[in-house]
């Protein structure tokens, strides 16, 4: 009977340990995961990449849809976005088109760091290449770089979340 108490304590500690391991999840996502695009990556793309004067322009390579930029159809913007009126959320079809746009510029050798969406906005000093839209990642440890890279290659979900949140905070007006 006396042995029951330590056993209960042991079980309790075991459960807490279980909770702790959930908090430090190492769950990997599949590359270009559709859900993570919508929840974590797209908010960064909305502000940093997909404006109408950049990748929201109709004739731009890697054309992207966004709530504030280009929509797939006129019916998706029936009133101007303002302080009082939020934009309509992106449709599943628009998000899928964005996902496919990234897939389309993946290089044949599929080396993760050689994806054009990582190379072009990266500073030349860090191994990047020319980007008309300027440098967005100063180094390969930039949260925006890690956010996008993690999503493209299928990294640890929790790490991507943290990086994307930092990237979003840095560009939000």
């Amino acid at each position, binding site marked *: 009977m006396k042995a029951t108490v330590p056993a209960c304590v042991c079980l309790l500690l075991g459960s807490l340990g279980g909770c702790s391991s959930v908090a430090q999840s190492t769950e990997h996502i599949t590359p270009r995961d559709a859900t993570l695009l919508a929840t974590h990556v797209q908010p960064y793309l909305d502000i940093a990449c997909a*404006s*109408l004067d950049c990748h929201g322009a109709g004739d731009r390579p890697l054309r992207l849809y966004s709530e*504030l930029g*280009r929509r797939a159809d006129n019916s998706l*913007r029936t009133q*101007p976005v303002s*302080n009082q009126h939020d934009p309509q959320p992106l449709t599943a079809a628009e998000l899928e088109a964005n996902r496919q746009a990234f897939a389309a510029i993946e290089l044949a050798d599929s080396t993760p760091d050689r994806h054009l969406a990582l190379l072009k906005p990266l500073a030349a000093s860090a191994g990047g290449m020319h980007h008309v*839209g*300027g440098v967005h990642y100063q180094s390969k440890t930039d949260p925006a770089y890690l956010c996008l890279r993690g999503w493209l290659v299928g990294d640890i979900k929790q790490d991507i979340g943290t990086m994307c949140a930092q990237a979003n905070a840095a560009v939000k*007006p």
Partner: protein
Amino acid sequence: MDAVMRSGATRGLLGLILVCAASACIGVSPEQRLAQDLGPDTGPYDTGPYHRAGFPCTNCHGDLWWQDHPTFELAGTVYRTPTDDQGQDGAVVSIQDATGKTITAQTNAVGNFFLVNGGTGTFRGSNQGSTVISGALVYPLRVSVKAGSAVQQMRGLIWRERSCANCHDKRLGAGSNGRVFVQESSP
């Protein structure tokens, strides 16, 4: 004699080809085409700070198109409401560039404002819409507009565009958020 005539004809033909080639080179440039595509100005002002309100100013007043001076760092038209055709007089446009430099411009009677980088030029009187700045803007830009107690903060950033109207076309739709305005609707 025949040989002389043939030689003269050949030279003439070569001359014609050269003239055609030269005129092709002198044809309309992409920048000229962009400016021409704006079509005629429907407003009452031929030139000056009040003309072409609502048009993309830097299609002509840009560094790629040298015929219309001055050239603008940033320019646009602010309207009172999204559906109002009358520009907002005296609206304050606040622009913060990537270095943190903040510039405040004021719209003129038709709602136009334009930033001119240094130099000398016309339209520098008060309430003419012109704001002289020193040094180029460093993108991206954060922008807000204010008139009286009404304020609108742009939710996105401007990454490269110099004319508001190239993104804020009056035709609201998939490729435009409509005009730049300060009030949600008419009071």
